[in-house]
């Protein structure tokens, strides 16, 4: 047992090292960073964080990112739920091809689509809005959400649906009041993945925004190049981008392994 647990421990240590370095860097003064190597910050400073929390171009980046990620997660789940139900319960013309076509959209390199996306969203007048980024991220989040939810739904016995219809439930009432509570874990896992892929994506988010909806990750690249090499500030901004993710994982921690297991396994 002792020996067995060494492997995960070493792995976690390996994962934590770069994160530790980022955090340690964020508490150092610029002087200390440039003057040489030190494992711990010699002088602890909160200056880097203070800059971020007082400068609107910085903290608006966080608000923008959170906004479009939230909108995207809601849209993705709302349209993916009925579609996943259709795929898990019914056979219809072209269903298999449709499913694969949806998956192919996860395979399109965002680098390919960056320029056409810019033109498309400029043409419909949505450029530099949160909704543009949220819609664009649907490209890869909806297929994934459908895929995950379909797995969960297929593990719910069909008798549940049939009994409900016999009892006189309408489709809508059955779906919201009986079916959705049954796949709660699945919805949680799907939401987690939508959040995750929308939060970490930068290329499209950066292409589709200029000022008003600019994501935090894009703010970081600009500042890093214009103000020379402010590593401490960059590190502090990086640390703050990790926190929302950590909070979301904390909420789904029990569902994530169980959730996968109930789904497509």
């Amino acid at each position, binding site marked *: 047992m002792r020996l067995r647990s060494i492997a995960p421990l070493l792995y976690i240590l390996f994962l934590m090292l770069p994160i530790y370095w980022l955090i340690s860097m964020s508490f150092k003064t610029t002087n200390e960073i440039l003057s040489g190597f030190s494992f711990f910050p010699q002088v602890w400073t909160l200056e880097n964080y203070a800059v971020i929390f007082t400068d609107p171009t910085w903290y608006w980046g966080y608000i923008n990112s959170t906004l479009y990620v939230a909108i995207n997660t809601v849209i993705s789940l709302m349209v993916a739920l009925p579609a996943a139900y259709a795929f898990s319960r019914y056979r219809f013309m072209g269903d298999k091809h449709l499913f694969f076509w949806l998956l192919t959209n996860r395979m399109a390199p965002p680098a390919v689509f960056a320029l056409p996306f810019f033109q498309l969203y400029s043409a419909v007048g949505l450029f530099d809005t949160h909704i543009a980024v949220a819609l664009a991220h649907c490209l890869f989040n*909806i297929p994934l959400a459908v895929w995950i939810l379909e797995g969960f739904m297929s593990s719910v016995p069909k008798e549940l649906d049939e009994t409900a219809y016999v009892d006189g439930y309408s489709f809508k009432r059955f779906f919201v009041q009986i079916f959705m509570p049954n796949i709660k874990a699945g919805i949680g896992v799907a939401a987690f993945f939508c959040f995750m892929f929308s939060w970490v994506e930068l290329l499209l988010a950066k292409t589709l925004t200029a000022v008003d909806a600019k994501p935090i990750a894009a703010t970081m690249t600009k500042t890093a190049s214009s103000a020379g090499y402010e590593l401490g500030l960059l590190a502090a901004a990086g640390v703050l981008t990790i926190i929302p993710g950590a909070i979301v994982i904390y909420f789904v921690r029990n569902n994530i392994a169980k959730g996968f297991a109930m789904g497509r396994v």
Partner: protein
Amino acid sequence: MKTENPRAWFLVLPVILLVAFNALIPLMTVVNYSVQETFGNNVFFWQGVDWFEQILHSERFHAALGRQFLFTGIILAIEIPLGVAIALAMPRKGIWVPVCLILMALPLLIPWNVVGAMWNIFTLPDIGLMGYGLNNWLGIEYDMTQSPLAAWVTIVVMDVWHWTSLVVLLAYAGLVSIPDAYYQAAEIDGASKWSVFRFIQLPKMKQVLTIAVLLRFMDSFMIYTEPFVLTGGGPGNSTTLLSIDLVKVALGQFDLGPAAAMSLIYFAITLLVSWIFYTIMTKESKE
């Protein structure tokens, strides 16, 4: 099992509309560019399949494609076995499970350019922990802006750091779904550890592992932001993967025609390989 129901189309319709808006219109734009030549000012000339021929015969494209396959091959060969091994060694119950899962999932939720920036800070030869450690404590000369080998090792280690957890999570989910009775039966039969793995654990993990391979293939084949932030494709062209090369052509040189043709070839290759994986996967799940 499933009932025939054409009206199910109405349930899928919103998904189709939304994805089609995002996928088909931009794709058509790309196709449009790929057969034309432009000298700016929105004046276009018909070019036919010239760009495609040019790209398919260009050494630069071959080199980038080769690097891309090499990269994807290496990271799959490391991440899949490593992920399975760690999932096998993880505890099944107890308070350490959520702790392990949270810590392991953390890298997955960091924005990709932050990952690149973070590894940049981490590997700086004079003030980064890894760079300084390798140079001064282990005496290995390391500077990824100078040596192509060091740059390659760095992007591979970064990707392993970033994505192995996804394989761990998926494999672990497969493992916890195995009922205890299977293990008890194996114990009664006196099965060795290897045969428990080979005949109980591996078959149960097969589905999730195919998903893991598929996801890792697609995402590593399209990787752009992390290596771009970390190495910028250098030193020289040594880590210029396919998407980095593509963006250089499209936005750097603004050669829309060749860039569009390249995009389509790129997309086609990704699609073909993923289709092969997908067919194998669905075939096996039916058996």
